[in-house]
C-alpha cells in the first residue's frame, strides 16, 4: 500500500513538473482565488487535526500545531 501511494505521488509530481508554470494576469486568477482552492486547512477542520495528532504517532507538515497541549485522555 505504501509503495502504491509513493508511486502515485511520484507520478503526480512528474506530471506537475512536466507542464511549465504559466504566468497569470489578475483577471485569469478567478478559479485560483476561489475560497475552496485555498492551500490550507479549512477552519472547520481545526479540531479534527487536534484529535488526529493525539491519536496518531505522526503530526506536522499540515500547517497545524506541532506541540503544546496534552491530549492525554
Amino acid at each position: 500500500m505504501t509503495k502504491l501511494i509513493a508511486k502515485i505521488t511520484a507520478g503526480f509530481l512528474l506530471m506537475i513538473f512536466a507542464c511549465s508554470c504559466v504566468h497569470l494576469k489578475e483577471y485569469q486568477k478567478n478559479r485560483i482565488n476561489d475560497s475552496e482552492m485555498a492551500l490550507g486547512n479549512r477552519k472547520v477542520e481545526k479540531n479534527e487535526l487536534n484529535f488526529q495528532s493525539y491519536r496518531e504517532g505522526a503530526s506536522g507538515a499540515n500547517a497545524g500545531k506541532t506541540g503544546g497541549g496534552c491530549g492525554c485522555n
Partner: protein
Amino acid sequence: MKKVFLSVIGFTLICRMSAYSQVKTDSAGAKPKISLYAPDSSTMKSNYKDRSLHVDEINFVSSYYWQTGDHSAVTGGIGSEKVTDIANGLDIKLAWLNSSLNKNTLSIGLGFDHHTSASQAFVSATGASKTGGDRIYPSIDWTKENAKNGNTFGLGAYVSSEYNYQSLGGDLHFSLKTQDKMGEFGVKLQAYLDKVKLIYPSELIPGTTTTTSGGTTIITTASGTTTTLSDGEHGHRGNIPSSPRNTFSSSFSYSQIINSRLQIMFLADLVEQHGYLSLPFHRVYFSTGKDTVEKLPAQRFKLPIGFRANYFLGDNIILRSYYRYYMDNWGIKSNTANLEVVYKVSPFFSIAPFYRFYSQSAAKYFAPYEAHNINDAYYTSNYEYSKFNSNFFGVGFRIAPPAGVFGMQGLHDLEIRYGHYAQNTDLVSNVVSLSLGFK
C-alpha cells in the same frame, strides 16, 4: 446687501479652488476644471484608503467528538477508551493600515474544551478519580503585510492550561512572494515550553505521613500532593510537582500557482522535543505481571514532509489533495493521504465529501499489555505508538451567499462537517463541527 452677496460668492470660489489644490494633475499636467458644482467624486476617491482599526473578521468553530475503544494507556493497553470532548474556539481579527499603507492584522483567539474520559477514573486504582476536565487556550498573533510586494512578517503567543498540563508557546513567522507573485515561501519558527504534572497511578505512590525531628508533619497523598503541618496546627498545602517538556519546530512551505486551475504546496517541519515525554499515569504491565508507569526517551526528533495540490476541474468541481510522509527517531514511519472533492452546487453553496487514509509502523518502545520484558530500557502500551492504519471519511457543507447566511448580513460563511474515524486497533470515533464566519 450686494457686498454680502459678493463676499459669499467670493468665499465659495476660494473654497472650491482650495478643494482642488491637491488634486493630481493629468498626463498633460493640467488640473481638472474648476466648477461651482460638486467636484468629480471618482477623482476625489481614487487614492483614499480607510486606515483606521476595524474588525476584519470573526470566526467561531465548535466541535463535538466522541470515541470508543478498548486499549486505554491509563490501564496499560486494556480497558475503555471512551471519551467525549466539546471544543469551542473564537478568533477575532482586527486590521489597520500604517502610514506606509502596510496592512497590520491582530488575531486574538480564545479556546475552551470540556472532556470526559472513562479511563481517567482509573488514575486511582479503585476507579475513583474524576472523569472530566477543562482546557482553556488563549492566543494572540500580529502580522504585518507589505503593501508593495505582499511579503509578511509576524509574531504569535499561545497559552494552554488544563489540570495536569500547562503549555506556553511563541512563534515568529514570515513569508516572501516571488517577483511574479505566483509563488510564496513561508517560514514559521515555534517554541512550546510545557509542564507535565506528575500525577502517578495511586497504587504506585502510596500516601505517606512523615514527622521530622522538628515536629513538622509531611503528608504525601497518592497523587503526590504534599501537606506540611507545623506544630500540629498550621497546614501548608504544596503543589503536585511538574516536569518540563519543550518543543522547538521550524516549518517551511513553498506554494506555487502552476496554471489557472492548479496550485501546489510543499511543506516540511523539523521538530525537536525534549524533557518528560511520557505521561506519568500511563501504566505498563510487564510479562511478569508487575506494573509500573510508561518510560520513554527524553528526546524525540520528528521529520514530516507534506505536499498539497488543489485542482479546479471543469466549472463545479475542486479536488483538494494532501499527502504526508513522516519519520521520527522512535521508529515511527507513516503515510497520510487525503482527498476532498468539492462540488459547487452554486457559487455560494458547496458539498465536499472527503476520505483520509493513514498508516504507521510501531515505535521501538511499544508492546501491548503484559508483553514488555522487565529488562527493557523504555516501555509503553499507549496504542498511539502501535502499528495501525486508520480510515477517516465524511462530508462537509459550506454556504456563503453574498447577502449573508439566512439573510443575516454579518454572517458571511457557515460550514458544517461530519467525520467518522476508525483504526484497526478497534478505536472508533465521530466528530461533528460547525464554523461560523462574521464580517
